Every structure is written in structure tokens, then in C-alpha cells.
């Protein structure tokens, strides 16, 4: 177990903290993840390199969502009432932006936007799947994704300007 902890603790924390902005909450969810992994290790099926990491990722994402739905349901539900059409900006250039910086930017997004962005871009879920997972409308997921991405693009642009990075 210690070896597993050494290998995965930081990785799991990276995932949880991408969904959850409060450090104490991350701590709770992380602990719950570790317990759930041990409890369900019998269900893990080895399917080649990286399969364990994929399985761990799924658990970490699910636990984070469970937490968000229990604590931040109001923010998630509000997504349905905050639909304003917003055109999607071009994909911001992130080649020169360190992962930690992007991680921090995502974390600063409002809970609802952050969740939709994470699920759509990082986990590769469709808006239909996200709508089902968060109990919101599909249109809300798409709309909030655009807003999240536009907000992120502005932050990235600001970061690049501060660092003097030119496109």
C-alpha cells in the first residue's frame, strides 16, 4: 500500500485539486479515493500498460464529482439558469505555458465552469454525458464550456503577456 501511495498520491491529488479548489476538501476527497481504491481493487482488470492509472483516474474523478454534487450542487444547478450565448474564442496557445500554471488557472474557475471544462476537455466526455452526470441540460454544458474556455483563454493571454511570450 505504501508503494501504491508513493506512486499515485501526487497524481491523484493533481486530479482532485483540478476539480476542487479548497485544500481541506481536496484532503477529504483524496483520502476517500485511497480507501475506495483499496476497497475496489478486486474489480480492477489489467488491460495493458496504463490501465491501472486509467482506473485510478476514474475513481478520482468520480469521487471529486460526488463531492461537488453533495457540496456544490447549488453551483452546478445554477448552470442551467446562467445560459448566455457566448461565441467560442480560438484555442489559446498553451505550448509555452507550464502544466502547473494551467492547472492553477483551471482551479480558479467557478466550480460549475471548472467541472464542465475538466470533464469535456481533460476527460473527453461529450456534453450529453456531462449533462447526465451533473443533472443539467446539454445546452447548459456546451454554453458553460464556452464561457470557461474563454475565461481560461484570457488568463492564458494575460500570462503570456506578463512573461513576454509572443505567439
Amino acid at each position, binding site marked *: 500500500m505504501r508503494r501504491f501511495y508513493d506512486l499515485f498520491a*501526487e497524481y*491523484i491529488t493533481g486530479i482532485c485539486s483540478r476539480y476542487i479548489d479548497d485544500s481541506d476538501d481536496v484532503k477529504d476527497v483524496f483520502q476517500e479515493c485511497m480507501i475506495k481504491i483499496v476497497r475496489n481493487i478486486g474489480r480492477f482488470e489489467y488491460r495493458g500498460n496504463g490501465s491501472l492509472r486509467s482506473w485510478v483516474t476514474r475513481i478520482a474523478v468520480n469521487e471529486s464529482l460526488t463531492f461537488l454534487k453533495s457540496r456544490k450542487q447549488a453551483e452546478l444547478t445554477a448552470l442551467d439558469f446562467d445560459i448566455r450565448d457566448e461565441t467560442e474564442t480560438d484555442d489559446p496557445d498553451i505550448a509555452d505555458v507550464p502544466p502547473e500554471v494551467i492547472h492553477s488557472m483551471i482551479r480558479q474557475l467557478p466550480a460549475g465552469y471548472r467541472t464542465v471544462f475538466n470533464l469535456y476537455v481533460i476527460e473527453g466526455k461529450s456534453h450529453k454525458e456531462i449533462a447526465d452526470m451533473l443533472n443539467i441540460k446539454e445546452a447548459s454544458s456546451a454554453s458553460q464550456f464556452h464561457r470557461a474556455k474563454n475565461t481560461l483563454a484570457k488568463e492564458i493571454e494575460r500570462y503570456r503577456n506578463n512573461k513576454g511570450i509572443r505567439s
Partner: protein
Amino acid sequence: MNTEWQKEMQRKMESCRKPAPDIPWPELERKMTAAYRQRQAAATGRYKRMAAAVAALAVFTATTVYFSHTESPATQTHTAIRSASDGTTPHVAGGGLSAYGGTNMAGKPAAMAKRQHTHQPQTEYRPEATATTASGTDTPPRQTAGDAGQNGDMPNATGRPNATPHKDRAGSLTAYTPAKAMGKTRLSAKIYMTNAMSGYDNTGAATAMLAKADPIGSHSYSFSGNHCEQRLAQTPSTVTDVHHRQPVRVGLGVRYRINDRWSVESGLTYSYLYSDITSRNNNYSYQTEQRLHYIGIPVSASYSVWRGRHLNVYATAGGMVEKAVSGKRDTRTIVGNETESDMSDHVSIGPLQLSANMAVGAEYLITPALGVYLEPGLSYYFDNGSATPTVYSDKPLNFSLSLGLRFNIR
């Protein structure tokens, strides 16, 4: 959104690590251990329930089959009366013999009745009693025995009986004698246990080590940049011992007799495979305990070489397809003389395991309904491409010895 942009974002986030929350390891370990024990307890409970269900099924099957072939005297009489009233079974009023002579059945029933008279204590398992009772419906059992004694003298007095018992209905009753039951029962079920195959495989060759190394222990090789375990394990001084203990197989089967010689058989088996795998070099060692559970479906054909009153000697050949339904591997890493870590992971073997087997068997019929058999044989397990070391992959050709009970159903 450009998919390339999405992939780049995914790559960056996947490589992003954050310091783990400040939770004291003993506290976290305690909670994880408690969760692990809960899981084990639940799994053990499942296995116990499964075992209880299988045992109950076996007992129920055995009891049902046994009693379906061991009728009580009252039942026998009732059957005889019913048969007699239906007119389907010839009977002798007042012990007269002419009826037998007139219906081509004089010899056999009389001879059977004589046997019953002289071997009274065995009537419980010797369905001659059924035949005799059937023929003596109108007389009390004791009188029937007496009549039968008289009847039994008749064939000798008149020369050999002119009966052809196997061609008429009454003759079919003789199928209840043990020797006939051995030959006439079409359908039988069996429950058995095979405990075979043991081996010890010890190798210091690096190539052999690599063939067996992947499934051992943690999945750390899955993670880029953490291949140190493998690299260390591949040093020339690394030695791997693979010790496969005797697997245990239990099964249920059904056999259908096509004719006097040939029969086909199929069923369901459960096999438990246990292996100790030790990999060590000068610095440290891994000790792995591997447990695999297989469910299999055997199919075979048997040829009866010799069949006697109680004994049937046969040869059988066939194949089996097995699926590893569950597996677990517990690995302990030992550095110096101290345990550094314990790791438990699930073992999944996707490909089916095919095998061919041939055996000779001897079955002894204890009662018409129940026989015990012993089958020594050889099995060959085909390579299924799995990297997981098993007794099947390391010792494909194995001796096997099966011991079981066979219940003749009908």
C-alpha cells in the same frame, strides 16, 4: 475546439502532480487496511455462500438420484399392483406357471425368483425383488417367495427355459440387476475431484525471468519513468523460483450412453491454482503468492473396454475450455531481511485456456444407482498467450488423477 489543442491540454494535465495532502501515513494506512479487510471479508463470505450452494446442490442431487432408484417395498408392491391391473405385466394367479410358458417368459422370472429366495437379504438393492413382486401380485410376499421357489425348479425340471427375456416387457425388468444397470443406464451424473499436477520450476536465466516477471507484483511498469524494478530484476544474478502447488479441481458432469460401448460426457468444473513465485538477487527479493480460479466446461467421449457385473473399465478422451474468472496476487518486497512493502493486485487472464486430455478409468458399481470411479490420465494445456505464469503454461503436460461418484439416473 481543435482536437490537437485538447490533446496537448490532456498531456499537460496528465503530467501535472500536486503534493499529496498532509495526512499522516499511519492514519491513512489504518483506514486503507480497514477497507481492505472489509473487502476480503465480503469476498470470503461470497466464496462460503458459493461453496455452501454447491455442497447443497451435490447433496440434493445425490439424495434425489439415490432414492429415485431405491423404491421401498410398499412402493414396489404398489407398482406391481398397478402394472398387473393395467395388464402390462404378465402375472401368475395362484403361482401357476402356465402363464409364463404361454407368454414366452417362463424361465427368467422363475430363475430370478429363485435368486431372491436364496438371497433374501440383498433384495433391497437387487431389483429382482421388483420383478418377483410384479409376477406375484396376487399373493403375499412370503407366499410369492415360496411360489418362486417352486417356479425356480421348473426350468430345471423341464430343461432350459424357452424364454427370450430381453425381447419382451417382463424381460426389461432384469435391467435392474447391477450388471445390467451398468450396461443399460443411459444417463448418469457425476461429482468428482481431480487433484493432480505438481511441479517445481527453478531458473536463473534472464529470459525465463522476463517471461514471468511482468505479472509479478505491482503494476509499476505501467508508469513511465518508474521502471527501476524491472531493470533491477533483469540483472544477471536474478533468480526466479516458480513453485506451483497441486491444483484442486472439482466438477459436476453428465454422461449419456450412446450404446453399449460409447458414451459422451460434459459438465462444469472449478479449478483452484496456487503458485509461489520468488524473484531475488543480491539486494532484494519479491515473494508473490498467486491464486487463480478457473471455471471450465469439459467435453469427452468414452469407450467401454470391459464391462462386468459391477465393474466397468473404459478409456476416455476429450478437451476442456477454461476461463480464469478470478485471480489475485500478493507481493511482498523484501530488502535485506526486512519487508519493505506489501502489494496486492487483481490478476486478469483474458484468453481462454484450452486443454486436451485422455484417461483410463475404472468404475465400480456399489448400487444400481451409485458407482465410484477412478481415472488416471494425461492432460495437455495449450499455450493461450497469457504472460501470467501458471501450472498450465509452465507444465503443459500433466498427469491427472480423478476420483468421483457417478449416479445412474435412468
